[in-house]
């Protein structure tokens, strides 16, 4: 009996040694990401030319990596957007993926719980130059001064413009660029001109999300902040009230957006493509989609221009989210594994200019200054976006902040609550949240 156990033990030992030896031969990294599944179209493709969809670019980048790095193979798990359901379950079970993509604002809560691997030193070791990140962009990957995520892009709120309708209103200059408003008065008079000439709104909001993003942008432009010095959320502020009142005023004028389109983003996007609005406030991620629709010639939109989010108050400021690559292996992860993971992330980051084809802003100065980037469609039109972006405060309440502010601002937009009450309610709920976490 004992001999049997001994033999079994040796067998297990040999087998496990064998498998570790095998594992050392080729390391397999799992990547949990959203952006969809398009293996059928791009499964064997290793040529990036002509590919402009998020899913296609990501799949082909991974294929190229796997071809060039037989020692570190990358295996993709497709997650549902925004990627948290599977990630949370996997972390809870102690079987996290080696790499995951998340929006930067979600980093603080994971990092504060020790679920993410600190990356600052590894990034340096692998050769990611942190000083290459633009000032606004670097913030998205940081928590308490340490990098936990590598910011891959900037998905900013911008102003999609139908030049033909602006021209009808006499708002296009000799160079063929729209005359963008730079103050509240400017904006209102431009909106009235467009409305008078075409009967259409100057800038529809692509859903409630765009309204809230605009609101935060205006708060920044007014010199306000979303957190106090102690890092607690602040939304019931004079700047927020002024910004919210401005948003509501525009709505009351009847020349901007119809409230129902503010809620239903999809309708606003269709309206813009169909030439039923002169502008759309929405993200960078729509740019190549509109370009493709125009190229195929099936939509009323013909002359399409991409402008920065309007600066109507004293300070520059616009909203952006950022997709970040992170290593959810915890704080005491195997250094070799972490290094391999970060080297893949570095490779993605080095090739991020391809990702910019989607329309997203870039996070690295070297990429932004590259010729390839500058030559992408529309880039000159919204060039200052990367400098103006402001990250959500790097605090653990980042997630709750969006959900709560969305709901309360919607109440104000639909006139269910007065702006004052809406902001006070939002503040009370945020305070509750912070209190609960403590």
């Amino acid at each position, binding site marked *: 009996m004992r001999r049997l156990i001994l033999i079994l033990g040796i067998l297990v030992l040999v087998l496990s040694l064998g498998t570790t030896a095998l594992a050392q031969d080729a390391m397999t990294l799992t990547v949990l990401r959203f952006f969809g599944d398009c293996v059928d179209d791009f499964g064997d493709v290793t040529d990036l030319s002509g590919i402009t969809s998020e899913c296609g670019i990501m799949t082909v980048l991974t294929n190229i990596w796997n071809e060039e790095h037989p020692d570190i193979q990358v295996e993709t798990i497709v997650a549902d957007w925004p990627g948290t359901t599977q990630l949370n379950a996997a972390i809870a079970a102690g079987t996290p993926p080696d790499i995951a993509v998340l929006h930067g604002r979600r980093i603080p809560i994971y990092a504060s719980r020790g679920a993410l691997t600190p990356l600052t030193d590894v990034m340096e070791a692998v050769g990611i130059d942190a000083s290459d990140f633009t000032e606004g962009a670097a913030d998205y990957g940081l928590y308490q001064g340490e990098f936990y995520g590598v910011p891959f892009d900037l998905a900013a709120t911008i102003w999609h413009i139908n030049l033909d309708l602006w021209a009808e209103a006499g708002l296009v200059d000799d160079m063929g660029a729209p005359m963008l408003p730079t103050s509240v008065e400017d904006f209102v008079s431009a909106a009235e001109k467009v409305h008078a000439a075409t009967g259409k709104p100057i800038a529809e909001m692509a859903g409630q999300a765009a309204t809230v993003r605009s609101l935060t942008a205006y708060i920044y432009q007014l010199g306000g902040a979303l957190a106090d010095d102690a890092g607690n959320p602040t939304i019931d502020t004079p700047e927020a009230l002024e910004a919210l009142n401005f948003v509501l005023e525009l709505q009351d004028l009847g020349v901007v957006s119809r409230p129902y389109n503010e809620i239903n983003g999809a309708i606003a996007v269709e309206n813009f493509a169909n030439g039923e609005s002169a502008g759309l406030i929405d993200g960078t*991620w729509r740019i190549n989609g509109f370009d493709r629709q125009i190229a195929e010639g099936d939509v009323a939109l013909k002359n399409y221009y991409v402008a920065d989010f309007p600066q109507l108050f004293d300070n520059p400021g616009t909203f952006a989210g950022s997709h970040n690559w992170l290593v959810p292996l915890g704080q005491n992860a195997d250094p070799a594994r972490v290094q391999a993971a970060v080297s893949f992330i570095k490779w993605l980051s080095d090739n991020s200019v391809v990702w910019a084809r989607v329309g997203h802003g870039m996070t690295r100065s070297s990429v932004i200054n590259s010729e390839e980037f500058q030559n992408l469609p529309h880039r000159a039109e919204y060039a200052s976006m990367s400098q103006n972006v402001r990250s959500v405060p790097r605090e653990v309440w980042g997630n709750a902040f969006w959900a709560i502010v969305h709901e309360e601002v919607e109440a104000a937009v639909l006139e269910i609550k007065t702006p004052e009450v809406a902001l006070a309610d939002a503040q009370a709920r945020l305070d509750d949240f912070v209190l609960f976490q403590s």
Partner: protein
Amino acid sequence: MESVPSINQLGAQQAEREKQQTRRNLAITAAMSLFAFIWLIPIAWTLSLSFRPEDSITANLTLLLPVPFTAENYDFVFSSSRIPRWFLNSLIVASLRTFLQLMVCSLAAYSFARVRFPFRQTVFYFVLIGLMVPGQATFIPVYLLFSNLKLLNSFPALIVPGIASPFAVFLLVQFFKGIPIELEEAARLDGASRIGVYWRIFLPLSTPVLTALAIFTFLGTWNEYLWPLVAATDPEVMTITIGLTNLTATTYTANYGETMAAAWTAGLPIVGFFFVFQKRIISGIQISSGIK
């Protein structure tokens, strides 16, 4: 005035009654058709969308006719070589779960409905507890369980948690209680065992409700989202609902055409399944006639 009707008169009356019956049937069919037409509009719309190019959908979404017509959405869906695999996975998972659930739960339901054992009512209430807690509150513990068993990304993970359904037991108990006790007593007197009564009397007599339950479970498993999303991320065991969602998901747009084509691709077999089995719901053995 009331005379005995002649045979001729009787025949005329019957003909009149039949005429009335036919007219009534026609009226019913007409009413049902109208109602069914309205009922179908949203479904017809999904079908139409699945045959329209996306840009035309953008321009005019609320169009009931697929003009211009295209099959490109289906091309897209069927271009995936993995679809047959996912289809098979869904078929295996849904069929096995449905079959096992029907067996396990009907046996338990028979016991709850007809066999006397101590604390029967208490145990029954204990089972009902399972109905009262939403799945969203328990899927993390179940996930951790399968993770500890190293059974994630396997068919058992997709099949087993749904087998013991308090819902099914509750439903079947209600129907089993309605089966006349005399039938069972007669069979017992003839020497049938409990299992024999269950197998030869209760199961056949419950064809309508068992079919309804089978359709419900099969469908629920086929369309299940949250659990397979976390439990089966490996394309080898992925179900078609998750696979198609991944295929048609783009982060920012609805993609009506492809989504609807995917929905019809995944849903058509179930419509067929239903059409075939609904007959059993009505033409199940007419148990009660002749008894009582």
